[in-house]
């Protein structure tokens, strides 16, 4: 496509739409395809969204209900997360669990 090339005819460099460098050395929470969740200190990343997390904790799902998180966690230490499998990245203190807002209230 014409807009993929600069004026000189060179290929457009791949730019990140999101700058992760502001999360370096901060605790972040990562959700993966397949339902896994992990949290750790971001030590490094690349444009393909592969991440290096330190002191990583994986949150384990309830085996009966795949969508409910349990209190169970396991320590993983220094971990590389595949960018192809990452679906969400947010700061650790940027989210909280709330009661289901979609449940219809029954009128008695």
């Amino acid at each position, binding site marked *: 496509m014409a807009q993929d090339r600069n004026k000189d005819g060179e290929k457009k*460099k*791949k*730019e*990140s739409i999101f*700058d992760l*460098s502001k999360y*370096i050395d901060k605790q972040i929470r990562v959700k*993966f*395809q*397949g339902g*896994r969740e*992990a949290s750790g200190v971001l*030590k*490094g*990343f*690349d*444009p393909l969204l*592969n*991440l*290096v997390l330190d002191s*990583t904790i*994986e949150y384990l799902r309830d*085996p*009966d209900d795949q969508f409910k998180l349990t209190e169970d966690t*396991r320590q*993983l*230490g*220094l*971990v*590389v*997360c*595949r*960018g*192809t*499998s990452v679906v969400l990245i947010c700061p650790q203190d940027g989210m909280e669990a709330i009661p289901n807002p979609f449940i219809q209230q029954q009128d008695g």
Partner: protein
Amino acid sequence: MAATPATNPSQLLPLELVDKCIGSRIHIVMKNDKEIVGTLLGFDDFVSILRNLLLSVSLFPQGRRITKLDQILLNGNNITMLIPGGEGPEV
């Protein structure tokens, strides 16, 4: 060069960390409930991984199944996490 992503040079690149792990033990967590532990022989651009002497642990709600495998080529499509020097899930 304003066009290039300004990554801090003192940070740790993910593929560098995997590269350092070549020849030593690594624990790989897949997207589903499978994990693999063994010696990393090498990897490519898509992080398909060549492994040796490993255990494949499938985690099920009723327990786990452990399979011993020899040398394998693991497709990088399903890899979620790579843990250098990992012990695997409480073997």
